């Protein structure tokens, strides 16, 4: 009886997972199919198993065009921004979560409002500021700028995670003579590791996918892959095949990054996992 109940549950889980996996993968599979077709084939009706592979879609953007450089820029900007955001966010979230600061809830809430602001209208002031400071078309400029939406996000997400770490743990460490930094490094960071990793993944993804700011604030040197993708859309036709191919290539670093970071969530998961 018990086994069959467990078996039933497992069956239910598999059905759910397979359904979700299909729904998730289908658009990506379709992107791959598009990337394997020439423009004419794309507009000649649905073809689920193409027999030919139009490899020019992959070779041209990276070998003849400058998409390799765009990809490198995106990697540098996303990774740099993630490092900056995580360091700042861990520090400040720790303070928000553990110490009484006058007006701390107001400061905390104000930080968050920065993510609520509609981005479009800030293009004008940012353009002016960046031109003045010489940050336009630089990777460091984007790394700093992306903090405006990533830092509030990271702080908010980490706050929830840190609040759920029992206070007794770090109070005990402090009584044992740890400094404020010691508690942060030895107690909080190890305990909040899954949260930090998830925040890092998502921060990285947001920076990796950002388009609006990058499109206006970069020109040649610091252009990112998302601005490169939009170049395929022209008045005389969108280059769907190459766009899909570049999108597929873009998946690779993201998958690698997510894969590495997820390893740490798994460790976390087994630590706090619900026992059956």
């Amino acid at each position: 009886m018990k086994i069959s109940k467990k078996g039933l549950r497992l069956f239910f889980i598999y059905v759910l997972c397979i359904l979700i996996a299909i729904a998730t993968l289908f658009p990506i599979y379709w992107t791959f199919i598009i990337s394997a077709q020439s423009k004419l084939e794309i507009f000649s009706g649905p073809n689920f198993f193409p027999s030919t592979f139009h490899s020019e879609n992959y070779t041209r953007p990276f070998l003849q065009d400058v998409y390799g450089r765009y990809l490198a820029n995106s990697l540098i900007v996303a990774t740099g921004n993630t490092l900056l955001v995580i360091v700042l966010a861990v520090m400040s979230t720790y303070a928000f979560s553990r110490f009484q600061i006058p007006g701390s809830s107001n400061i905390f809430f104000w930080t968050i409002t920065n993510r609520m602001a509609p981005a479009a209208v800030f293009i004008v002031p940012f353009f002016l500021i960046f031109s003045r400071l010489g940050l336009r078309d630089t990777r460091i400029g984007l790394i700093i700028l992306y903090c405006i939406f990533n830092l509030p996000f990271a702080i908010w997400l980490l706050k929830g995670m840190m609040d759920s770490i029992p206070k007794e743990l770090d109070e005990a460490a402090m009584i044992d003579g740890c400094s404020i930094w010691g508690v942060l490094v030895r107690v909080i960071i190890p305990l909040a590791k899954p949260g930090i990793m998830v925040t890092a993944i998502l921060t990285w993804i947001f920076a990796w996918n950002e388009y609006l700011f990058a499109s206006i604030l970069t020109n040649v040197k610091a252009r990112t892959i998302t601005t490169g993708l939009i170049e395929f859309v022209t008045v005389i036709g969108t280059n769907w095949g190459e766009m899909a191919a570049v999108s597929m290539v873009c998946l690779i670093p993201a998958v690698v990054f997510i894969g590495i970071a997820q390893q740490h969530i798994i460790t976390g998961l087994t630590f706090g996992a619900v026992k059956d």
Partner: protein
Amino acid sequence: MRRRLLTVVFVLCFLLVPTMVFAQVANPDWWKKAAEPYKGVVIHGVSESTPPSKAIAEIAVPAFEELTGIKVELETTSWDEMYNKEIQDMQAGAGIYDFVYLEQDAVYSYMEQDWLTDLTPFVDNADLTEPDFDLPDFTSFIDYFKGKDGELYGIPFEAFLKTYIYRTDLFNDSDIQAAFKEKYGYDLAVPTTWEQYEDIAKFFTEYGKEKGIELYGHVAQAKTHPCLAYELCETIWPPWGVYNWGINLENMRTSVENGGTLNSDTAKEALGWYVDMLQYAPPGVRTYTWDEAAAVFGTGIIAQGFLYMENLGWLAHDPDRSVVIGKVAIDIPPAKPGVMEAAEAGEGYIGYYDGGAWGIPYCSKNKEAAWLFIQWCTRKEWQPEFAELATTVVRKSAFEDPIIDELNVAMGGYYTVMQEKGHLFAGCPPLPMQTPLNELYLQWISRAVAGEVSPEECLDNLAKEADELMEELGY
């Protein structure tokens, strides 16, 4: 293996092309001397990623850099983004760009704001202008880039029509011709009236259904997207006799009571007709922009329609994207009674003459070097090759070149139409506020296309709001 070999050959061809095309420079010594003071300067430009700009970026730029020692950084990007970048730059006076793409319809906004450099002093300066530059050789399209007192703000490098395109293989098929004659009582030919256009559209769509083949008699760019409003203003209304976006250019008002024609009966009828005609286009027509409209035409399921002739280059040559190579021809659009006469007399127009030019922002820091580069792109001796790469002609002398005759055949008589009937077409009227206006037009027209409002309601409301917008903007 064979594929790899092909790729190698392909890459090699690309490397060889620049040297081949630029083997002939009329006055290399002049260029070297003129560029001497600007050696090592880096100039920045922005343009849309269309074939002419791509040809310039891939071929003209390297050759120019090698000959003159001036370095050129040309960004090619999407249409939307290009506008934003140019406007941000010039509005802030940031001086990022030394030369910018001026689309014909946008140039009035830039002139209104005094954002462009008058090029006349450069043209008159013999140290900076090549002896063979020959300004009068440009087609009349250059006139759109002149200010009120004849100042010159842009040198065109791209010009094309949006006009009628049809499939010769279908129109000349004797079975089809017989079937058409039987049904409508007259011969199948290029339509000269809108009624004929409708008959043909209906005929081919029904013919496709009967024969069980995918074939439609009409195509449009009816997605909720700026292109929809442009299609009405550029392609549908003018040959119905509603010019200048329905705007009375004297007082910049659109509604009938203020002397405009936007909510006139003709405009409403035309819009109603446009919406009704979508039934003869492929089922997805309401998701098409200019992009898909041409792409679908390339797959050979459209018998006739209106397209931007920028697309003709690949429609006529690129087997990767087109199955209609050698099967298309170009003609002028049909017109309502009286419109053709008005167009001949210069009082109206039947279609859209679009294109772009290079201009120099007022805040550029390297105007002289930018001017040299602009001349380089529009040099007389390069134009025939450029026409082949980019299917665009901006100089009268280029029409004389044998290459154009060859292209003309492949492109279904496009250059003949352009040369002989080009004067019947017109660019965008001088509307410095055309971008916000287009956005407003789009909001209302898209609702009519979606059936949310009737064409009458749509245009009455639109005219009212357009008048308000004009007033708000100080016109």
